[in-house]
């Protein structure tokens, strides 16, 4: 088993499949009355969050607690840049506390990689800058597999601000590893150079062939940087509304990593439709993170 989960690229097809299968077992356990498992008793998991992300932190916290790990929440927002303790000093503190795993969310790409060179425990990337968010990709893949029965051969459209999206990066890597075909859709200004997947600037032409449409959150601040002219124009060209949703094949699903801008990239009636997996994604997030914690920490260190 791998020691750290820093990037979806750390996962080969076998490992990724093992995590998804394990997540499936975890999900089944989550339906029981007693949700707690003794598996990680005596292990310490630190949630080291340099950015506010209540949903991701709670998801990891629930996952660790269901496996009986001791959870320490270390909110370091705003304390890392120039003022306050450096990441390295924080790492040494966590090391002294005997953290078996550190779940890190950080605004700087690559911070989890740096951290992994300073601590002995496992490091799990819970989102770093505009780099990656591998557990989000795992929960997304798990959701697709649960709804559609497979990943191999699926056509997945990832729509929106791909340039700044760690979710998109991790999904491209993981889905490609698992045999899905990814198409990135958005205005050319928001698609990076050499994106590692097919690209389209025309959402309407992609929808009829898509099994999965994953809408990314688009921050309105991007408008100020001239990535697109206005929220209205963005929404018209790349927003998923009811009319566009009807272009999708019968079985296709609509995903969103949250938090959503209703009315911007996704219309309310789409977000609340039967195709939408948005609520499932949250539940699956706990199962996927339990699987990751178990597989990283459940064996001999």
């Amino acid at each position, binding site marked *: 088993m791998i020691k750290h989960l820093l990037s979806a690229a750390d996962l080969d097809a076998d490992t990724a499949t093992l995590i998804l299968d394990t997540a499936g077992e975890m999900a089944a356990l989550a339906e029981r009355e007693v949700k707690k498992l003794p598996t990680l008793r005596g292990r310490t998991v630190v949630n080291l969050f340099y950015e506010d992300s209540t949903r991701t932190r709670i998801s990891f916290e629930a996952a660790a607690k269901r496996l009986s790990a001791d959870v320490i929440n270390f909110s370091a927002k705003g304390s890392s840049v120039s003022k306050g303790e*450096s990441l*390295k000093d924080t790492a040494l503190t966590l090391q002294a506390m005997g953290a078996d795993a550190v779940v890190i969310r950080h605004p700087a790409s690559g*911070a989890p990689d740096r951290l992994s060179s300073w601590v002995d425990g496992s490091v799990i990337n819970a989102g770093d800058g505009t780099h990656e968010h591998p557990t989000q990709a795992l929960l997304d893949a798990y959701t697709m597999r649960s709804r559609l029965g497979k990943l191999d051969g699926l056509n997945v459209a990832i729509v929106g601000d791909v340039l700044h999206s760690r979710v998109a990066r991790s999904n491209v890597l993981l889905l490609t590893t698992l045999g899905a075909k990814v198409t990135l859709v958005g205005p050319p200004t928001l698609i990076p150079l050499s994106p590692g997947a097919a690209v389209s600037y025309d959402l309407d032409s992609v929808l009829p062939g898509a099994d999965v449409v994953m809408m990314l959150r688009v921050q309105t601040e991007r408008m100020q940087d001239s990535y697109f002219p206005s929220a209205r124009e963005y929404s018209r060209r790349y927003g998923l509304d009811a009319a566009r949703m009807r272009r999708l094949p019968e079985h296709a699903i609509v995903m969103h990593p949250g938090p959503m801008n209703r009315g911007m990239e996704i219309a309310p009636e789409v977000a609340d439709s039967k195709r939408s997996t948005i609520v499932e994604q949250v539940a699956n997030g706990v199962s996927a993170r339990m699987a990751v914690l178990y597989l990283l920490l459940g064996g001999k260190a």
Partner: protein
Amino acid sequence: MTSSYVIRGASILGASPADLFVSDGVLVDSAPSNAEVVEADGLVALPGLVDLHTHLREPGREDAETVETGSRAAAMGGYTAVCAMANTSPVADTAGVVEQVWRLGREAGLVDVQPIGAVTVGLAGKQLAELGAMAASAASVRIFSDDGSCVADPRLMRRALEYVKAFDGIIAQHAEEPRLTEGAQMHEGEVSTRLGLTGWPAVAEEAIIARDVLLAEHVGSRLHVCHVSTAGSVEVLRQAKARGVRVTAEVTPHHLLLTDELAASYDPVFKVNPPLRTAKDVEALRAALIEGVIDIVATDHAPHAVEDKECEWAYARPGMVGLETALPVVLSVLGEQWDLIADRMSRTPARIAGLSSHGLSLRPGEPANLTLVDPAARRVVDPSGLTSKSRNTPYAGTTLPGRIVATFLRGEPTVLDGKAQK
């Protein structure tokens, strides 16, 4: 205190071994009496190297480097003269600061320290600094640069180019269109996409160089382009030179050897501005240096304290130390083309900087500024073994050819047997 030396059996620029005689700071044609003998069997003698681009950090960041420690590192690297960049704190934008740096250099006495003056007040890119006062100061500043920042305003750049003509000055431009590099962390390309680091596009450099060569041509001034890093910049320079524009350009050792793939470690020791580029760029830069489209190698020696590098990539300061590894890196890239190396690392930089006692032939009558290199030696770079006060070398663990055995500044050894003499 003046001594005499016989440097026995040195191979000048790789020619057959001969003795060099040093007396009263100059090379002489016969052995002086009471001369100390320096055995130079198997060593190559080069004119003392000249660095057109050094950050000595004093005043302001004496924890990272001082004029003295930087001078010592330079001597250990075979240098006899360095040009000290202006982005100190306070900025070297007045006669007072450049004279302070110049005096500190004289006191250290390890290399000639030639201060570079800022083009604009506080490097802010708004208002011309007192260029004439710096030129007329004891430091006799001739090169002006806002290095670290680009003189982005085209009108200001034009005025600066024009203004320094009065005292045969030269503007050394850090070519980086700031609007295209906001938040930039590394070369924009496949690797930056993968790593999720904001890209620094090659065009941000090329666009400024293209603009500046046209400005320099228009006003008939001298332009020097700092740390050229892209294949596209080479093409712009090639065309400008073919038209007769008075432009010179430098490339750093690291841009001749390293690529953006190294950023994959997220270790900020590989973070530098301009960023490491692709293998294709490295190839073009090497060819341009050999061809002469790029005139010189300059180190962009940029020492940084540990806390500015042992952190997240985005928060780290850009820059690498380079004085002590420059010649070995160039040797590994060019091979033992000694005349070419002397030209690109001593003669031409001395000429661009107007340092008339450096970069000269090792002939009787000339100042004895020279360095002795053992080309057969191989050295594994160990950051803790560096003379510089800082350790941020990208070559840790790399084996590089060549060892600087001795350096003489005006006839006095600053380095002997690979050890600094003061």
